[in-house]
Protein backbone atom coordinates (compact mmCIF):
# COMPACT_ATOMS: atom_id res chain seq x y z
CA UNK A 1 0.00 0.00 0.00
CA UNK A 2 1.34 3.41 -0.90
CA UNK A 3 1.21 6.26 1.52
CA UNK A 4 -0.48 9.25 -0.09
CA UNK A 5 -0.35 12.39 2.04
CA UNK A 6 -3.24 14.82 2.02
CA UNK A 7 -2.91 18.02 0.02
CA UNK A 8 -4.03 21.36 1.40
CA UNK A 9 -6.99 21.13 -1.00
CA UNK A 10 -7.96 17.71 0.42
CA UNK A 11 -7.90 19.15 3.92
CA UNK A 12 -9.99 22.17 2.91
CA UNK A 13 -12.58 19.88 1.28
CA UNK A 14 -12.82 17.61 4.30
CA UNK A 15 -13.12 20.51 6.75
CA UNK A 16 -15.78 22.01 4.51
CA UNK A 17 -17.86 18.82 4.61
CA UNK A 18 -18.00 18.81 8.41
CA UNK A 19 -18.32 22.57 8.61
CA UNK A 20 -15.21 23.72 10.46
CA UNK A 21 -12.63 26.22 9.32
CA UNK A 22 -9.39 24.72 10.59
CA UNK A 23 -7.89 21.56 12.04
CA UNK A 24 -7.29 23.44 15.29
CA UNK A 25 -11.03 23.92 15.64
CA UNK A 26 -11.40 20.15 15.99
CA UNK A 27 -9.59 20.41 19.32
CA UNK A 28 -11.73 23.16 20.82
CA UNK A 29 -12.98 20.76 23.55
CA UNK A 30 -9.45 20.69 25.01
CA UNK A 31 -9.37 23.40 27.71
CA UNK A 32 -6.99 26.31 27.07
CA UNK A 33 -5.12 25.55 30.29
CA UNK A 34 -4.24 22.09 29.00
CA UNK A 35 -2.94 23.28 25.64
CA UNK A 36 0.68 23.74 24.73
CA UNK A 37 1.19 27.47 24.18
CA UNK A 38 4.25 27.22 21.99
CA UNK A 39 7.40 25.19 21.63
CA UNK A 40 8.81 23.06 24.47
CA UNK A 41 11.99 24.68 25.77
CA UNK A 42 15.09 22.71 24.87
CA UNK A 43 13.30 20.38 22.45
CA UNK A 44 14.60 20.90 18.92
CA UNK A 45 12.09 21.11 16.10
CA UNK A 46 13.42 18.22 14.08
CA UNK A 47 16.69 16.47 13.38
CA UNK A 48 17.97 14.05 10.77
CA UNK A 49 18.06 10.33 11.54
CA UNK A 50 21.81 10.30 12.20
CA UNK A 51 21.56 13.29 14.57
CA UNK A 52 18.66 11.68 16.44
CA UNK A 53 20.65 8.48 16.84
CA UNK A 54 23.63 10.41 18.21
CA UNK A 55 21.47 12.41 20.58
CA UNK A 56 19.84 9.29 22.01
CA UNK A 57 23.15 7.48 22.34
CA UNK A 58 24.35 10.41 24.43
CA UNK A 59 21.24 10.19 26.63
CA UNK A 60 21.65 6.41 27.00
CA UNK A 61 25.28 6.83 28.06
CA UNK A 62 24.03 8.65 31.15
CA UNK A 63 22.40 5.41 32.38
CA UNK A 64 24.33 2.97 34.53
CA UNK A 65 23.23 -0.23 32.83
CA UNK A 66 22.57 -3.45 34.74
CA UNK A 67 24.83 -5.36 32.38
CA UNK A 68 27.95 -3.23 32.92
CA UNK A 69 27.81 -2.34 36.62
CA UNK A 70 27.91 -4.42 39.80
CA UNK A 71 24.19 -4.94 40.25
CA UNK A 72 22.35 -5.69 43.52
CA UNK A 73 18.89 -4.29 42.79
CA UNK A 74 15.75 -6.33 43.43
CA UNK A 75 12.62 -5.22 45.32
CA UNK A 76 10.29 -6.95 42.87
CA UNK A 77 12.33 -7.15 39.63
CA UNK A 78 15.38 -9.37 39.38
CA UNK A 79 18.26 -9.58 36.96
CA UNK A 80 18.88 -13.13 35.84
CA UNK A 81 20.71 -14.70 32.94
CA UNK A 82 18.34 -15.52 30.10
CA UNK A 83 19.88 -18.03 27.67
CA UNK A 84 20.05 -16.94 24.02
CA UNK A 85 18.03 -20.06 23.14
CA UNK A 86 14.96 -18.45 24.71
CA UNK A 87 15.02 -15.57 22.25
CA UNK A 88 15.39 -17.95 19.35
CA UNK A 89 12.61 -20.30 20.46
CA UNK A 90 10.00 -17.61 21.11
CA UNK A 91 10.39 -16.34 17.54
CA UNK A 92 9.55 -19.65 15.91
CA UNK A 93 6.57 -19.73 13.55
CA UNK A 94 4.57 -22.16 15.72
CA UNK A 95 4.25 -19.33 18.23
CA UNK A 96 3.77 -16.58 15.68
CA UNK A 97 0.79 -14.95 17.31
CA UNK A 98 0.80 -14.76 21.07
CA UNK A 99 -2.55 -13.07 21.10
CA UNK A 100 -5.78 -14.60 22.37
CA UNK A 101 -6.14 -17.94 20.58
CA UNK A 102 -9.87 -17.99 19.84
CA UNK A 103 -9.38 -20.29 16.86
CA UNK A 104 -7.85 -23.58 18.04
CA UNK A 105 -7.61 -24.85 14.45
CA UNK A 106 -4.86 -22.34 13.68
CA UNK A 107 -3.24 -21.79 17.09
CA UNK A 108 -2.25 -25.17 18.45
CA UNK A 109 1.32 -23.98 19.09
CA UNK A 110 0.16 -21.10 21.26
CA UNK A 111 -2.46 -23.19 23.04
CA UNK A 112 -0.02 -26.00 23.77
CA UNK A 113 2.63 -23.78 25.31
CA UNK A 114 -0.01 -22.01 27.41
CA UNK A 115 -1.21 -25.42 28.60
CA UNK A 116 2.37 -26.32 29.50
CA UNK A 117 2.82 -22.92 31.17
CA UNK A 118 -0.24 -23.63 33.34
CA UNK A 119 1.16 -27.04 34.24
CA UNK A 120 4.51 -25.51 35.22
CA UNK A 121 2.76 -22.90 37.38
CA UNK A 122 0.77 -25.53 39.30
CA UNK A 123 3.96 -27.56 39.89
CA UNK A 124 5.93 -24.52 41.09
CA UNK A 125 3.22 -23.21 43.41
CA UNK A 126 1.92 -26.56 44.66
CA UNK A 127 -1.60 -25.63 43.56
CA UNK A 128 -4.25 -27.48 41.54
CA UNK A 129 -5.13 -25.16 38.67
CA UNK A 130 -3.42 -22.18 37.04
CA UNK A 131 -4.53 -19.76 34.35
CA UNK A 132 -2.73 -18.80 31.15
CA UNK A 133 -1.08 -15.79 32.92
CA UNK A 134 -1.97 -12.31 34.09
CA UNK A 135 -0.35 -9.02 33.07
CA UNK A 136 2.05 -9.07 36.02
CA UNK A 137 2.33 -9.99 39.68
CA UNK A 138 0.93 -6.74 41.03
CA UNK A 139 -2.27 -6.58 38.97
CA UNK A 140 -2.58 -10.35 39.51
CA UNK A 141 -2.62 -9.65 43.24
CA UNK A 142 -5.53 -7.24 42.96
CA UNK A 143 -7.36 -9.81 40.79
CA UNK A 144 -6.75 -12.40 43.53
CA UNK A 145 -8.35 -10.10 46.11
CA UNK A 146 -11.36 -9.52 43.85
CA UNK A 147 -11.65 -13.29 43.42
CA UNK A 148 -11.52 -13.86 47.19
CA UNK A 149 -14.29 -11.28 47.59
CA UNK A 150 -16.43 -13.22 45.10
CA UNK A 151 -15.75 -16.58 46.75
CA UNK A 152 -16.39 -15.40 50.31
CA UNK A 153 -19.00 -12.73 49.48
CA UNK A 154 -17.07 -10.48 51.86
CA UNK A 155 -15.27 -7.23 51.19
CA UNK A 156 -12.36 -6.68 53.55
CA UNK A 157 -8.82 -7.63 52.56
CA UNK A 158 -5.92 -7.63 55.04
CA UNK A 159 -2.62 -6.75 53.38
CA UNK A 160 0.60 -7.76 55.10
CA UNK A 161 3.26 -5.16 55.86
CA UNK A 162 5.61 -7.54 54.08
CA UNK A 163 3.80 -7.03 50.78
CA UNK A 164 5.68 -5.01 48.16
CA UNK A 165 4.38 -1.43 48.64
CA UNK A 166 3.71 -1.07 44.90
CA UNK A 167 1.52 -4.20 44.99
CA UNK A 168 -0.23 -2.78 48.05
CA UNK A 169 -0.98 0.47 46.24
CA UNK A 170 -2.41 -1.35 43.23
CA UNK A 171 -4.74 -3.31 45.50
CA UNK A 172 -5.70 -0.07 47.27
CA UNK A 173 -6.46 1.62 43.94
CA UNK A 174 -8.66 -1.32 42.93
CA UNK A 175 -10.31 -1.25 46.37
CA UNK A 176 -11.11 2.43 46.00
CA UNK A 177 -12.91 2.01 42.68
CA UNK A 178 -14.46 -1.41 43.27
CA UNK A 179 -15.70 -0.47 46.71
CA UNK A 180 -14.01 -2.93 49.04
CA UNK A 181 -11.82 -2.36 52.09
CA UNK A 182 -8.07 -2.93 52.02
CA UNK A 183 -6.46 -2.77 55.46
CA UNK A 184 -2.66 -2.61 55.38
CA UNK A 185 -0.19 -3.59 58.08
CA UNK A 186 2.78 -1.37 58.91
CA UNK A 187 5.97 -2.05 56.92
CA UNK A 188 7.31 -5.26 58.44
CA UNK A 189 11.07 -4.78 58.22
CA UNK A 190 11.82 -7.30 61.00
CA UNK A 191 9.62 -10.08 59.59
CA UNK A 192 7.80 -10.58 62.88
CA UNK A 193 4.28 -9.59 61.82
CA UNK A 194 1.50 -11.89 63.01
CA UNK A 195 -1.85 -11.33 61.28
CA UNK A 196 -3.74 -14.22 62.89
CA UNK A 197 -5.46 -12.03 65.50
CA UNK A 198 -6.62 -9.60 62.79
CA UNK A 199 -8.58 -12.21 60.81
CA UNK A 200 -12.29 -11.93 61.55
CA UNK A 201 -15.68 -12.85 60.10
CA UNK A 202 -15.63 -9.88 57.74
CA UNK A 203 -12.22 -10.74 56.30
CA UNK A 204 -12.37 -12.01 52.73
CA UNK A 205 -8.65 -12.66 52.45
CA UNK A 206 -5.21 -12.10 53.90
CA UNK A 207 -2.48 -11.19 51.42
CA UNK A 208 1.09 -12.12 52.39
CA UNK A 209 4.32 -12.20 50.42
CA UNK A 210 7.04 -14.86 50.58
CA UNK A 211 9.90 -14.02 50.68
CA UNK A 212 8.55 -10.70 51.94
CA UNK A 213 9.40 -7.29 50.49
CA UNK A 214 12.18 -7.12 53.11
CA UNK A 215 13.37 -10.61 52.19
CA UNK A 216 12.06 -12.65 55.14
CA UNK A 217 11.12 -16.26 54.44
CA UNK A 218 8.10 -17.46 56.41
CA UNK A 219 5.81 -20.47 56.68
CA UNK A 220 2.21 -19.30 56.61
CA UNK A 221 0.65 -22.67 57.56
CA UNK A 222 -0.76 -21.37 60.87
CA UNK A 223 -2.11 -18.25 59.19
CA UNK A 224 -3.79 -20.42 56.53
CA UNK A 225 -5.52 -22.42 59.29
CA UNK A 226 -6.69 -19.22 60.98
CA UNK A 227 -8.02 -17.87 57.66
CA UNK A 228 -9.94 -21.06 56.93
CA UNK A 229 -11.39 -21.20 60.45
CA UNK A 230 -12.77 -17.69 59.87
CA UNK A 231 -14.01 -18.46 56.35
CA UNK A 232 -11.35 -16.28 54.70
CA UNK A 233 -8.85 -17.13 51.97
CA UNK A 234 -5.06 -16.93 52.17
CA UNK A 235 -3.38 -15.30 49.17
CA UNK A 236 0.37 -15.84 48.93
CA UNK A 237 2.32 -13.51 46.64
CA UNK A 238 5.78 -14.42 45.33
CA UNK A 239 7.70 -11.63 43.60
CA UNK A 240 10.88 -13.69 43.06
CA UNK A 241 9.68 -16.88 41.39
CA UNK A 242 13.16 -18.46 41.45
CA UNK A 243 12.73 -18.81 45.23
CA UNK A 244 10.24 -21.62 44.57
CA UNK A 245 13.20 -23.78 43.55
CA UNK A 246 14.15 -24.01 47.23
CA UNK A 247 11.28 -22.84 49.40
CA UNK A 248 8.18 -24.70 50.51
CA UNK A 249 5.50 -24.14 47.84
CA UNK A 250 2.63 -21.89 49.02
CA UNK A 251 0.19 -24.70 48.17
CA UNK A 252 1.77 -26.83 50.91
CA UNK A 253 1.23 -24.01 53.41
CA UNK A 254 -2.50 -24.06 52.69
CA UNK A 255 -2.71 -21.07 50.34
CA UNK A 256 -6.00 -20.70 48.47
CA UNK A 257 -4.64 -18.42 45.75
CA UNK A 258 -1.01 -17.97 44.74
CA UNK A 259 0.17 -15.05 42.61
CA UNK A 260 3.74 -14.73 41.35
CA UNK A 261 5.69 -12.27 39.28
CA UNK A 262 7.28 -14.48 36.65
CA UNK A 263 9.76 -11.96 35.21
CA UNK A 264 12.79 -13.70 36.72
CA UNK A 265 12.39 -16.65 34.37
CA UNK A 266 12.86 -15.89 30.68
CA UNK A 267 12.23 -12.16 30.90
CA UNK A 268 14.64 -9.26 31.24
CA UNK A 269 14.26 -6.21 33.47
CA UNK A 270 13.11 -4.04 30.55
CA UNK A 271 12.70 -0.86 32.64
CA UNK A 272 9.83 -2.51 34.54
CA UNK A 273 7.84 -4.37 31.91
CA UNK A 274 6.19 -6.06 30.20
CA UNK A 275 6.22 -8.82 32.79
CA UNK A 276 4.09 -11.90 33.35
CA UNK A 277 1.81 -12.77 36.27
CA UNK A 278 1.36 -16.34 37.47
CA UNK A 279 -2.01 -17.16 39.02
CA UNK A 280 -2.99 -20.45 40.64
CA UNK A 281 -5.76 -21.67 42.92
CA UNK A 282 -7.68 -24.70 44.17
CA UNK A 283 -9.97 -26.71 41.89
CA UNK A 284 -13.00 -25.72 43.96
CA UNK A 285 -12.46 -22.02 43.15
CA UNK A 286 -11.74 -22.55 39.45
CA UNK A 287 -15.04 -21.00 38.31
CA UNK A 288 -14.21 -17.78 40.14
CA UNK A 289 -10.71 -17.52 38.68
CA UNK A 290 -9.95 -14.59 36.34
CA UNK A 291 -8.17 -14.91 33.00
CA UNK A 292 -7.79 -17.38 30.19
CA UNK A 293 -7.65 -21.11 30.78
CA UNK A 294 -6.41 -23.64 28.23
CA UNK A 295 -7.58 -27.25 28.38
CA UNK A 296 -6.53 -30.49 26.72
CA UNK A 297 -9.05 -32.34 24.59
CA UNK A 298 -9.32 -34.61 21.54
CA UNK A 299 -10.41 -33.64 18.05
CA UNK A 300 -12.91 -35.46 15.80
CA UNK A 301 -10.26 -38.04 14.93
CA UNK A 302 -9.39 -38.68 18.56
CA UNK A 303 -6.08 -36.81 18.34
CA UNK A 304 -4.85 -34.71 21.26
CA UNK A 305 -5.49 -30.97 20.94
CA UNK A 306 -5.82 -27.83 23.04
CA UNK A 307 -8.63 -25.28 23.36
CA UNK A 308 -9.68 -22.38 25.55
CA UNK A 309 -11.93 -23.79 28.23
CA UNK A 310 -14.34 -22.59 30.95
CA UNK A 311 -14.68 -19.42 28.90
CA UNK A 312 -18.04 -18.58 30.42
CA UNK A 313 -16.07 -16.91 33.21
CA UNK A 314 -14.81 -14.46 30.65
CA UNK A 315 -15.81 -11.19 29.11
CA UNK A 316 -16.41 -12.38 25.57
CA UNK A 317 -19.22 -14.63 26.80
CA UNK A 318 -20.69 -13.19 29.97
CA UNK A 319 -19.86 -9.52 29.47
CA UNK A 320 -20.43 -7.57 32.68
CA UNK A 321 -20.84 -10.80 34.66
CA UNK A 322 -17.31 -11.95 33.83
CA UNK A 323 -14.97 -12.75 36.70
CA UNK A 324 -12.53 -10.12 35.46
CA UNK A 325 -12.07 -7.47 32.80
CA UNK A 326 -8.83 -9.23 31.89
CA UNK A 327 -9.52 -11.22 28.75
CA UNK A 328 -6.05 -11.47 27.38
CA UNK A 329 -2.77 -12.58 28.91
CA UNK A 330 0.93 -11.81 28.82
CA UNK A 331 1.40 -14.35 26.03
CA UNK A 332 4.88 -13.61 24.78
CA UNK A 333 6.35 -13.23 28.28
CA UNK A 334 4.57 -16.44 29.33
CA UNK A 335 6.14 -18.19 26.33
CA UNK A 336 9.60 -16.96 27.31
CA UNK A 337 8.93 -18.17 30.87
CA UNK A 338 7.89 -21.62 29.68
CA UNK A 339 10.80 -22.00 27.28
CA UNK A 340 13.35 -20.92 29.91
CA UNK A 341 11.88 -23.14 32.63
CA UNK A 342 11.76 -26.09 30.21
CA UNK A 343 15.43 -25.55 29.37
CA UNK A 344 16.31 -25.48 33.07
CA UNK A 345 14.27 -28.55 33.96
CA UNK A 346 13.45 -29.45 37.55
CA UNK A 347 17.06 -30.12 38.60
CA UNK A 348 18.36 -27.04 36.81
CA UNK A 349 15.74 -24.82 38.41
CA UNK A 350 16.63 -26.12 41.85
CA UNK A 351 20.33 -25.58 41.13
CA UNK A 352 19.64 -22.02 39.95
CA UNK A 353 17.80 -21.33 43.20
CA UNK A 354 20.71 -22.75 45.21
CA UNK A 355 23.22 -20.53 43.42
CA UNK A 356 21.03 -17.49 44.06
CA UNK A 357 20.80 -18.21 47.76
CA UNK A 358 24.51 -18.97 48.05
CA UNK A 359 25.45 -15.68 46.37
CA UNK A 360 23.11 -13.71 48.61
CA UNK A 361 24.46 -15.46 51.72
CA UNK A 362 28.02 -14.55 50.65
CA UNK A 363 26.98 -10.95 50.15
CA UNK A 364 25.23 -10.82 53.53
CA UNK A 365 28.39 -12.12 55.24
CA UNK A 366 30.53 -9.50 53.51
CA UNK A 367 28.33 -6.45 54.19
CA UNK A 368 27.50 -7.44 57.77
CA UNK A 369 31.24 -7.22 58.56
CA UNK A 370 31.14 -3.49 57.75
CA UNK A 371 30.96 -1.17 60.77
CA UNK A 372 27.46 0.19 61.41
CA UNK A 373 25.78 -2.28 59.04
CA UNK A 374 23.23 -4.74 60.44
CA UNK A 375 21.45 -7.48 58.50
CA UNK A 376 17.80 -7.60 59.64
CA UNK A 377 16.97 -11.07 58.33
CA UNK A 378 17.18 -14.40 60.15
CA UNK A 379 16.23 -16.05 56.88
CA UNK A 380 16.18 -14.92 53.27
CA UNK A 381 16.41 -16.24 49.73
CA UNK A 382 18.35 -13.99 47.34
CA UNK A 383 17.49 -10.64 48.89
CA UNK A 384 17.82 -9.21 52.39
CA UNK A 385 17.57 -5.90 54.23
CA UNK A 386 20.38 -4.06 55.96
CA UNK A 387 20.20 -1.14 58.31
CA UNK A 388 22.89 1.48 57.68
CA UNK A 389 22.56 3.75 60.69
CA UNK A 390 21.98 6.64 58.28
CA UNK A 391 19.57 7.36 55.41
CA UNK A 392 20.01 4.81 52.63
CA UNK A 393 18.92 6.85 49.60
CA UNK A 394 21.99 9.18 49.53
CA UNK A 395 24.23 6.14 50.01
CA UNK A 396 22.73 4.48 46.94
CA UNK A 397 23.17 7.73 44.97
CA UNK A 398 26.82 7.93 46.02
CA UNK A 399 27.36 4.30 44.95
CA UNK A 400 25.68 4.98 41.60
CA UNK A 401 28.09 7.87 41.06
CA UNK A 402 30.82 5.23 41.44
CA UNK A 403 28.94 3.10 38.86
CA UNK A 404 27.78 0.55 41.41
CA UNK A 405 24.05 -0.27 41.54
CA UNK A 406 23.97 -0.98 45.24
CA UNK A 407 20.41 -2.02 46.00
CA UNK A 408 17.09 -0.28 46.58
CA UNK A 409 16.57 2.06 49.54
CA UNK A 410 13.29 1.09 51.22
CA UNK A 411 12.36 4.78 51.13
CA UNK A 412 12.19 4.55 47.34
CA UNK A 413 8.97 2.55 47.67
CA UNK A 414 7.91 3.89 51.08
CA UNK A 415 8.78 7.59 50.73
CA UNK A 416 6.51 8.77 53.55
CA UNK A 417 7.70 6.35 56.21
CA UNK A 418 10.60 7.65 58.33
CA UNK A 419 10.95 4.28 60.09
CA UNK A 420 12.44 2.65 56.98
CA UNK A 421 14.68 5.58 55.98
CA UNK A 422 17.92 3.80 56.94
CA UNK A 423 17.02 0.48 55.32
CA UNK A 424 18.61 -0.85 52.14
CA UNK A 425 17.42 -3.91 50.20
CA UNK A 426 20.23 -5.90 48.59
CA UNK A 427 19.69 -8.72 46.09
CA UNK A 428 22.24 -11.11 44.61
CA UNK A 429 21.33 -13.52 41.82
CA UNK A 430 23.44 -15.97 39.83
CA UNK A 431 24.70 -12.95 37.87
CA UNK A 432 26.56 -11.54 40.91
CA UNK A 433 30.34 -11.98 40.75
CA UNK A 434 33.03 -11.95 43.44
CA UNK A 435 34.47 -8.81 41.82
CA UNK A 436 31.09 -7.11 41.89
CA UNK A 437 30.59 -7.94 45.57
CA UNK A 438 34.09 -6.68 46.38
CA UNK A 439 33.32 -3.43 44.51
CA UNK A 440 30.09 -2.96 46.51
CA UNK A 441 31.84 -3.57 49.83
CA UNK A 442 34.65 -1.18 48.89
CA UNK A 443 32.09 1.40 47.74
CA UNK A 444 30.11 1.10 50.98
CA UNK A 445 33.31 1.54 53.00
CA UNK A 446 33.93 4.81 51.20
CA UNK A 447 30.46 6.30 51.43
CA UNK A 448 29.27 5.13 54.84
Amino acid at each position, binding site marked *: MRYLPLTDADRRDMLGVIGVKSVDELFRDVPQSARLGGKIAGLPDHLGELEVERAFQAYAAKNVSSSVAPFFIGAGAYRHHVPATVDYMIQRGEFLTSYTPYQPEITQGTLQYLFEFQTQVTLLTGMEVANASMYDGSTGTSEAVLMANRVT*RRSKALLSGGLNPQYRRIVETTAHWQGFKAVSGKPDAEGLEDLIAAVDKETSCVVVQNPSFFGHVRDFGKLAEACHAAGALLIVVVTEVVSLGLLKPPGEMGADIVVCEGQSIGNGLGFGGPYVGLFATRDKYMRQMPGRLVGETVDADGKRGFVLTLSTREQHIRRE*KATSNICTNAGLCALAFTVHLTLLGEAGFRRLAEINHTKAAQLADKVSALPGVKVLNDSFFNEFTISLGKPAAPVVEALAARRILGGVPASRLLPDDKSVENLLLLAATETATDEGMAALVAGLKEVL
Partner: protein
Amino acid sequence: MADMKYTQEHEWIRIEGDTGTIGISAYAQEQLGDVVFVDVPQAGRKVAKGDSVAVVESVKAASDIYAPASGEVIEANAALADTPGDINVEPMGKGWFFKMKLADKSELDGLMDQAAYDAFVKSLG
Protein backbone atom coordinates in the same frame (compact mmCIF):
# COMPACT_ATOMS: atom_id res chain seq x y z
CA MET B 1 -51.92 -29.34 45.34
CA ALA B 2 -49.01 -26.95 45.03
CA ASP B 3 -49.44 -23.89 42.89
CA MET B 4 -47.09 -23.75 39.87
CA LYS B 5 -46.17 -20.49 38.13
CA TYR B 6 -43.78 -19.52 35.34
CA THR B 7 -41.77 -16.44 34.43
CA GLN B 8 -41.02 -15.11 30.95
CA GLU B 9 -37.40 -16.13 31.59
CA HIS B 10 -38.58 -19.77 31.68
CA GLU B 11 -38.19 -20.28 35.41
CA TRP B 12 -40.83 -22.15 37.35
CA ILE B 13 -41.78 -21.62 40.96
CA ARG B 14 -43.75 -24.15 42.98
CA ILE B 15 -45.58 -22.40 45.82
CA GLU B 16 -46.33 -24.31 49.02
CA GLY B 17 -47.53 -22.02 51.82
CA ASP B 18 -44.96 -19.24 52.02
CA THR B 19 -42.19 -21.35 50.50
CA GLY B 20 -41.27 -21.30 46.83
CA THR B 21 -39.10 -23.84 44.99
CA ILE B 22 -37.42 -22.51 41.84
CA GLY B 23 -36.11 -24.27 38.75
CA ILE B 24 -36.04 -23.92 34.98
CA SER B 25 -38.64 -25.29 32.57
CA ALA B 26 -38.36 -28.25 30.24
CA TYR B 27 -38.32 -25.78 27.35
CA ALA B 28 -35.40 -23.87 28.93
CA GLN B 29 -33.27 -26.96 29.45
CA GLU B 30 -33.94 -28.05 25.87
CA GLN B 31 -32.77 -24.67 24.58
CA LEU B 32 -29.65 -24.77 26.75
CA GLY B 33 -28.58 -28.29 25.88
CA ASP B 34 -26.38 -30.33 28.22
CA VAL B 35 -25.97 -28.46 31.49
CA VAL B 36 -22.40 -28.68 32.78
CA PHE B 37 -22.37 -26.32 35.76
CA VAL B 38 -24.77 -24.62 38.12
CA ASP B 39 -24.03 -21.94 40.68
CA VAL B 40 -26.81 -21.88 43.29
CA PRO B 41 -27.24 -19.26 46.04
CA GLN B 42 -26.29 -19.93 49.65
CA ALA B 43 -28.97 -20.50 52.26
CA GLY B 44 -29.58 -17.32 54.22
CA ARG B 45 -29.07 -15.00 51.28
CA LYS B 46 -31.68 -12.26 51.10
CA VAL B 47 -32.87 -11.59 47.56
CA ALA B 48 -35.07 -9.03 45.90
CA LYS B 49 -37.39 -9.81 43.01
CA GLY B 50 -35.42 -9.68 39.76
CA ASP B 51 -31.99 -10.21 41.38
CA SER B 52 -29.62 -12.52 39.55
CA VAL B 53 -29.30 -15.37 42.08
CA ALA B 54 -28.00 -18.39 40.17
CA VAL B 55 -26.10 -19.27 37.03
CA VAL B 56 -26.69 -22.18 34.72
CA GLU B 57 -24.05 -23.08 32.21
CA SER B 58 -24.42 -25.50 29.33
CA VAL B 59 -22.21 -26.56 26.49
CA LYS B 60 -23.84 -23.77 24.48
CA ALA B 61 -24.43 -20.85 26.82
CA ALA B 62 -24.32 -19.38 30.29
CA SER B 63 -27.50 -17.85 31.67
CA ASP B 64 -28.51 -16.07 34.83
CA ILE B 65 -31.44 -17.21 36.93
CA TYR B 66 -33.48 -14.40 38.47
CA ALA B 67 -35.42 -14.42 41.71
CA PRO B 68 -39.14 -14.48 40.77
CA ALA B 69 -39.96 -12.88 44.13
CA SER B 70 -38.32 -11.28 47.15
CA GLY B 71 -37.41 -13.23 50.26
CA GLU B 72 -34.69 -15.38 51.75
CA VAL B 73 -33.02 -18.46 50.32
CA ILE B 74 -33.61 -21.37 52.70
CA GLU B 75 -32.06 -24.26 50.81
CA ALA B 76 -29.98 -24.80 47.69
CA ASN B 77 -29.91 -28.03 45.71
CA ALA B 78 -26.38 -29.10 46.63
CA ALA B 79 -26.62 -32.25 44.49
CA LEU B 80 -26.46 -30.13 41.32
CA ALA B 81 -22.76 -29.45 41.94
CA ASP B 82 -21.98 -33.10 41.19
CA THR B 83 -24.86 -33.91 38.83
CA PRO B 84 -25.82 -30.78 36.91
CA GLY B 85 -27.31 -33.12 34.28
CA ASP B 86 -30.30 -33.58 36.64
CA ILE B 87 -31.56 -30.34 35.13
CA ASN B 88 -31.78 -31.98 31.69
CA VAL B 89 -33.24 -35.23 33.00
CA GLU B 90 -35.81 -33.86 35.43
CA PRO B 91 -36.02 -30.08 35.12
CA MET B 92 -39.23 -29.94 37.14
CA GLY B 93 -38.13 -32.56 39.70
CA LYS B 94 -34.68 -33.31 41.05
CA GLY B 95 -33.26 -30.52 38.86
CA TRP B 96 -34.69 -27.82 41.16
CA PHE B 97 -32.28 -24.95 42.00
CA PHE B 98 -33.23 -23.50 45.36
CA LYS B 99 -36.03 -22.97 47.85
CA MET B 100 -36.92 -19.58 49.29
CA LYS B 101 -39.16 -18.09 51.93
CA LEU B 102 -41.44 -15.66 50.13
CA ALA B 103 -41.69 -12.18 51.61
CA ASP B 104 -44.74 -11.09 49.67
CA LYS B 105 -46.77 -13.63 47.69
CA SER B 106 -48.59 -10.90 45.79
CA GLU B 107 -45.36 -10.39 43.86
CA LEU B 108 -46.20 -13.66 42.09
CA ASP B 109 -49.54 -12.43 40.78
CA GLY B 110 -48.14 -11.35 37.44
CA LEU B 111 -46.61 -14.76 36.65
CA MET B 112 -48.08 -17.25 34.19
CA ASP B 113 -49.94 -20.40 35.16
CA GLN B 114 -49.39 -23.70 33.33
CA ALA B 115 -51.86 -22.98 30.53
CA ALA B 116 -50.57 -19.45 29.95
CA TYR B 117 -46.96 -20.68 29.93
CA ASP B 118 -47.75 -23.51 27.48
CA ALA B 119 -49.32 -20.94 25.16
CA PHE B 120 -46.29 -18.64 25.63
CA VAL B 121 -43.86 -21.41 24.67
CA LYS B 122 -46.04 -22.30 21.67
CA SER B 123 -45.97 -18.64 20.55
CA LEU B 124 -42.14 -18.81 20.49
CA GLY B 125 -42.40 -21.41 17.76
